[in-house]
């Protein structure tokens, strides 16, 4: 059930990218889409009744490995969040520069290149 909710979030983001007319709303929809993917990725590593994957000095490694949720998707999500941040910074800078040049945030008016 929760997997389908994260897929729904991805689809909502994709809908936003396709339909939005404001460049900043396109960027926000992209961020929502990425959040959905990150949620999906973390959920893949879930184990019912699991512990956070942080090692204590007291717990033996074998017991820990049987109890903890999978830390690999969490590492992937951290990397992906950083990548998303880089893309977001670039896109927002592009939006600001586009406003400076074209005077509008409306994507349907920023259409000098065609054919």
């Amino acid at each position, binding site marked *: 059930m929760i997997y389908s909710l994260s897929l729904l979030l991805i689809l909502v983001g994709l809908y936003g990218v396709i339909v939005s007319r404001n460049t900043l709303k396109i960027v926000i929809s992209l961020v929502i889409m990425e959040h959905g993917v990150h949620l999906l990725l973390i959920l893949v590593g879930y184990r019912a009744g699991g512990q956070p994957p*942080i*090692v204590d*000095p007291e717990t033996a490694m074998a017991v820990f490995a049987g109890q903890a949720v999978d830390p690999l998707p969490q590492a992937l999500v*951290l990397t992906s*969040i*950083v990548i998303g941040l880089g893309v977001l*910074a670039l896109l*927002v*800078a592009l939006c*600001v520069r586009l*406003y*400076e040049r074209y005077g509008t945030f409306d994507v349907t008016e920023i259409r000098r290149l065609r054919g």
Partner: protein
Amino acid sequence: MKADRHTEGMGIIVKTVARWLKGFILLYGIYLVLYGHITPGGGFAGGVVISCAFILLTLAGGENHGLRFFPKTASSTLDSMGLLLFLAIAWLGTWWLGGAFFKNVISTPEQAYFTLFSGGTIPLSNIGLGLKVASSLFLVFTVLAAFRLAMDAADKDEDEP
């Protein structure tokens, strides 16, 4: 209207509270960076929190308020230095005997797990990353804020006859 130190940005209460809070936020960010190999956190999360301290100053007091504590040249240099530190540690692994890129060359004996000085090169890499991320995010925020202020000033000049 000349931008004055006391009239720019938000009110005096916000600026005072921001000035008091920046130390605590910085401390929390440094804790996240340094203890990244024991508790969740690490270079990236700690770097984001450190940059939040300076971004809070910029939000509260205007662009110059934030830049007074962390000038653009310093953040540019720290940016490159953080990444160079990270890469230097990575390259160090290749010249150790039988080493590979990113090899952990300063690992300690087993009893020292879970303390601050365990983990070998990981805390050093975290520090490099933390510096880089903090300065990068602060620079991005300042430059985008400067755009907005420049556009506002241009609009204001157009409005006044």
